[in-house]
């Protein structure tokens, strides 16, 4: 099970996370719609990312992110019928490790990959990717492969 990303994608996400520090950044992961998307361990290939504004209220962006649903609907519409889709989301954790928080779990959807980048003192400090378990009770880690 893995999240495959290109070097360019990884570099983009790292720079977005560092630029947003101490606030959280967020964005879409785009790629071919996986077969068996709902099955734990399915491979996900990220071909591109789309950085997005953090839509959470301004005072809390150091520990929260939110994606404007209108942007999500727009991108889904753009990709409709192309065999590609939003396969997950990235966001950063400023000052804390890349473990999903209880709040991440509370708001987690099935299928998607949740790629979290830790940023310590303005520099990225590792990343991990997660998928929600079927029962919604936990996150299962998937390897991040940069090629």
């Amino acid at each position, binding site marked *: 099970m893995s999240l495959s990303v290109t070097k360019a994608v990884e570099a983009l996400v790292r720079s977005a996370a560092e630029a947003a520090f*101490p606030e*959280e950044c967020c964005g879409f992961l785009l790629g071919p719609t996986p077969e068996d998307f709902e099955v734990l361990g399915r491979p996900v290939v990220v071909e591109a990312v789309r950085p997005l504004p953090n839509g959470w209220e301004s005072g809390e962006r150091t520990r929260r992110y939110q994606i404007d649903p209108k942007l999500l609907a727009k991108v889904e519409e753009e990709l409709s019928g192309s065999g590609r*889709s*939003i396969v997950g989301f990235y966001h950063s954790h400023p000052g804390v490790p890349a473990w999903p928080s209880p*709040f991440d779990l509370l708001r987690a*959807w*099935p299928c998607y990959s949740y790629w979290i980048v830790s940023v310590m003192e303005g520099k990225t400090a590792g990343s991990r990717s997660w998928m929600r378990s079927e029962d919604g009770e936990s996150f299962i880690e998937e390897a991040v492969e940069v090629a």
Partner: protein
Amino acid sequence: MSVQVKLPSALRPFADRQEQVALDGKTAGEVLDALFARHGGLKKQLLTDDGKMRNFVNIYVNDDDIRDLKGLNTPVKDGDAVLIVPAIAGGSATAEAALTKEELQRYHRHLILPEVGPEGQKKLKSAKVLCIGAGGLGSPLALYLTAAGVGRLGLVDFDSVDASNLQRQILHDTPSVGTSKLVSAKKRLNALNPNVDVQLHEQRLTSANAIDLFRQYDVIADGTDNFATRYLVNDACVLTGKPNAYGSIFKFEGQLSVFGAKDGPCYRCLYPEPPPPGLVPSCAEGGVLGVLPGVIGTMQALETLKLILGIGKPLIGRLMLFDALAMEWRTLKLKKNPACAVCGPGATIKAPIDYEAFCGLKTPPQAMPEISVEELRDKLARKDRFVLLDVREPHEYELASIPGSTLIPLGAVAERSGELDITKEIVVHCKMGGRSAKAVDILLKKGFKAVNVAGGIHAWSERIDPGVAQY
């Protein structure tokens, strides 16, 4: 009546991998019921056990969120699209700061106040406060905020504990003299309340680091002792939108306000420019009564708690002045200055500036003529022809002086320079060398041949004559 229901990629596995499903219904709710009837797996993903739509699901009819229309009763017609759109959110913090059993006991007196209660205590636990300075004002601020249970307390300081701090800086103790102020503070604060995350920023607050630092906190409590840092704190608070629980003290008087709050005035609205350098002495030069920082610092802590809890009437748009000798408080109303350079509509300051230059603290480009205390000793021994001018205040002169010196306090040097013999070299000293440098500058401009004594009488006492008292 056929309506297309469009599914995001994450829901397609629960609807036979279709991107969209054509269904009938007169309202959005009816269409969704039809969808769940056909694809049972979707229901579990989108509805809670008691049949309500989960909070991370948005339903759109064409371009509009049904929350802005008639909810599930929003009518739909042939050709409309119903979109199921994930509300994606998350973040590093826990959903809500829960209180442990130990915290429930510790904060009992807060919890029984209806204005605070468990909700308020959780707000405190989620709050991050940055104290600028761990000295006179920073001590009561940090102690009370830690005791009250703020989640994270940041301290900015780069000094070490000096014996002369202990008369008022109750965060530090005698064994800590000579060690880092922040290390000393953390030890004390951790012992007081181990639940508080004490973050140490052992650095000088500068125009380069202030913005990034302030962004990590909710409230800034300014306990600085100089104008350059005070303007920096003010501007960085305005630029980052953080309220500043401000306090300052001098001799027997204190000031208190909340600056930089939304729609409230800032320090620059009150004082667009700093006083000329040297006019207002610092506490190190002018002195401060021991308990005074306790009075002002605890009130800054109080204002900080009110800002976090959102209770009462914070000191926004009001400046409180405290006179300890008269034991009187006065409250002045402050207005936002429409011409303010940092918070006014035509603000020119968009990023922190050079505050040393703004406060006139940059030393002039030409080197200050200077001699060491050893050279002064030799000059005196040789009975060179010169005037030794002391520019400290009379009460300082009484505490300690160098024999043979003439006293003219800095504030009177320009006016009384006529008393000095212009044919002689003027050797100027003060306590540490700061005020005397200003006096040398004044005298040079008036045509005197003046030199500064580096390190002042303090260095004299340390290196030449230990019989001269240090104060």
